[in-house]
């Protein structure tokens, strides 16, 4: 058996996004589109109200970028969960389990274990040494201008790829949930999603965004836990029964209960899986929109609590997706899921429909849209803050310490620009296989950001040159390797002859790099470049600046007043 390696890099979920426009005949809503839209409208109305209400005093830069440092650890942990559990997690991982069984489950483990790295090594020193963005931490001891620009470039690259994937995901969901079949209706939906989330960010700033994420995370968890209980209850609360029933419905039979369905077989396939696992576990610690959330709490201990809360919630959620995935395999059946518009993404909505009829489907649909809105809002504020605080402030010469009011103004304009970019990009990529975008985001985050963060916090001899080599080297190598991989060109379904790549013309093939995830090459390379750039650097390390970083990172001395602001 040659398992057609699905074009998914990090989020199995996105495997689900159809590589080709679906024939109109294949589309059709499940349930009641009017009800789905009504529930969604209620959610948007309520969260917009909250965004306006909580953001009353959104006047200073700390208010706008960091919610006035007024979010508690627990609230922030829930918001981080809301930010991290994208539609790909909710619909995608469960869908991948429903179709591929055990191998879908493997993803969720990498996504979860990655949080330990954030907890032990990153969260607290990051909170103690930075203000708004990733670049703040790095420039604490490194040369300001170039390093700040590099950090902004990688922040915006990661955020933009993540953003496009979410917008395209919204387009794919529309097919199923609102009964809108391709064409202009889908574009209108993407436009509406884009406009609403830009509005959240403009009006609510980080505080409004945070509360949207909290509301969404709570709804998502309630929906997931209730569905999980229902599925488990149907199986008599016996996991073995659930697995037996589920595997009996799959054409692969018992093979869905063991690893290897997706990532077994050839050695390339296995190395690809290890590469993916590396990117997943190391990518979380470099995701700028997650790291930026750590600045919204008053101090390092609250940052620690945030990460712990996020870990509990994300872990609980992934445990639910395991049950939901096998539940969908059992109660809906892989054949129906694969035939549905949206494919694997449809597994959970179909399960909800099976279990609770149109009302529950409407709730799940609304939660899925809420998820996209909340994640997109978090990405937009991260990218716009990075532009305003790191790039624009550098242009006007003050290097991150310029006029804060102007920074907020610039960030708002940028948010509108990024919102428009996301809408156009989302419309353009709506029928593309967008797996590579999220995969790129995780691989770039792990390659471009993580080595530099760890080196600059913990290695005394790290230099600006090391940082630049590592960031640009990691960024370029991961992007170039993805472009040269089967994800972008030359992957053909062995049975149908159809292209599974982003470039859908099967005659175009410039894939010279065999792996779909570049992590196993680009991450070690970025660490190596950081070391090499530092040891060959002529400029002396400034021991005073490293001393200041180390002392502040552990004790928050000197940063305390800023931290309580």
């Amino acid at each position, binding site marked *: 058996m040659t398992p057609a390696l699905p074009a998914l890099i990090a989020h199995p979920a996105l495997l689900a996004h159809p590589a080709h426009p679906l024939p109109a005949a294949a589309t059709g809503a499940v349930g009641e589109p009017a009800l789905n839209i009504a529930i969604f409208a209620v959610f948007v109305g309520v969260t917009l109200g909250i965004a306006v209400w909580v953001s009353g005093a959104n006047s200073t830069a700390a208010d706008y970028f960091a919610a006035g440092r007024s979010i508690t650890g627990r609230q922030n942990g829930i918001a981080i969960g809301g930010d991290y559990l994208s539609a790909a997690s909710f619909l995608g991982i469960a869908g991948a389990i429903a179709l591929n069984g055990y191998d879908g*489950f493997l993803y969720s483990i990498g996504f979860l274990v990655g949080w330990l790295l954030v907890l032990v090594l990153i969260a607290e020193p990051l909170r103690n040494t930075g203000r708004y963005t990733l670049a703040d931490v790095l420039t604490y001891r490194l040369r300001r201008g170039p390093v700040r620009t590099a950090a902004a470039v990688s922040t915006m690259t990661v955020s933009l790829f993540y953003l496009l994937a979410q917008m395209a995901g919204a387009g794919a969901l529309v097919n199923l949930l609102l009964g809108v079949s391709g064409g202009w209706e889908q574009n209108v939906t993407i436009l509406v999603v884009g406009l609403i989330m830009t509005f959240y960010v403009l009006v609510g700033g980080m505080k409004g965004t945070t509360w949207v994420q909290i509301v969404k995370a709570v709804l998502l968890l309630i929906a997931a836990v209730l569905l999980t209980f229902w599925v488990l209850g149907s199986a008599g609360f016996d*996991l073995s029964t659930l697995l037996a029933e589920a595997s009996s419905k799959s054409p692969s039979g018992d093979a869905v209960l*063991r690893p290897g369905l997706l990532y077994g077989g050839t050695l390339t396939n296995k190395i690809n899986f290890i590469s993916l696992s590396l990117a997943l576990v190391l990518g979380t610690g470099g995701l700028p929109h997650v790291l930026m959330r750590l600045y919204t709490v008053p101090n390092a201990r609250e940052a*620690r609590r945030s990460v712990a809360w996020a870990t509990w919630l994300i872990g609980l959620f992934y445990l639910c997706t395991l049950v939901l995935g096998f539940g969908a395999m059992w109660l809906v059946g892989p054949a129906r899921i694969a035939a549905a518009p949206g494919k694997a993404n449809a597994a959970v909505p179909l399960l909800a429909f099976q279990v609770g009829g149109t009302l529950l489907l409407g709730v799940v649909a609304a939660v899925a849209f809420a998820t996209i809105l909340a994640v997109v809002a978090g990405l937009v504020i991260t990218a716009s803050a990075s532009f305003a605080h790191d790039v624009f402030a550098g242009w006007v010469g003050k290097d991150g310490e310029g006029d804060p009011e102007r920074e907020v103004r610039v960030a708002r304009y940028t948010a509108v620009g990024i919102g428009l970019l996301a809408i156009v990009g989302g419309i353009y990529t709506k029928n593309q296989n967008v797996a590579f975008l999220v995969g790129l985001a995780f691989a770039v985050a792990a390659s471009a950001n993580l080595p530099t963060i760890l080196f600059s916090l913990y290695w005394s001899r790290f230099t600006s040159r090391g940082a630049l080599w590592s960031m640009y080297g990691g960024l370029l190598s991961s992007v170039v390797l993805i472009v040269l991989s089967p994800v972008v060109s030359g992957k053909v379904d062995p049975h149908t002859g159809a292209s599974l790549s982003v470039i859908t013309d099967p005659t175009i093939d410039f894939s010279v790099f065999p792996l779909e995830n570049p992590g196993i090459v680009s991450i070690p390379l970025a660490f190596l470049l950081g070391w090499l750039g530092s040891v060959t650097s002529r400029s002396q390390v400034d021991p005073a600046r490293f001393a200041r970083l*180390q002392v502040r990172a552990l004790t928050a001395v000197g940063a305390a007043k800023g931290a309580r602001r």
Partner: protein
Amino acid sequence: MTSTQPGRERVITYEAVQHSREFRQLQRRFRRFAVPTVLAFLGWYFLYVGLAAFLPDLMATRVYGRVNLGLCLGLLQFVSTFLVTALYLRWSRRRLDPLVDRLRDRLEQGGLR
């Protein structure tokens, strides 16, 4: 990189703090926890990934009903992640925070030579 304490004309350099006995103790204590912990959970994670990739037959060994070793080890990854999180919270509250507080108080009063 100096800061003056108002009231007392004492200047503290961060380098002096970095070399102080208290700070070194704090740093040592953190490293003694962090380094083995990080190595352990990453090692355990990659062991699991390696088993899933290269020994799928072993992972298919049944443990209870249809629940196989692969699923058990996967669920144990969840357990270990929760456990490490809880351990770190407890350890940092008991062993790290008091040292940090003491050191910060002394620094903010300018009492460190």
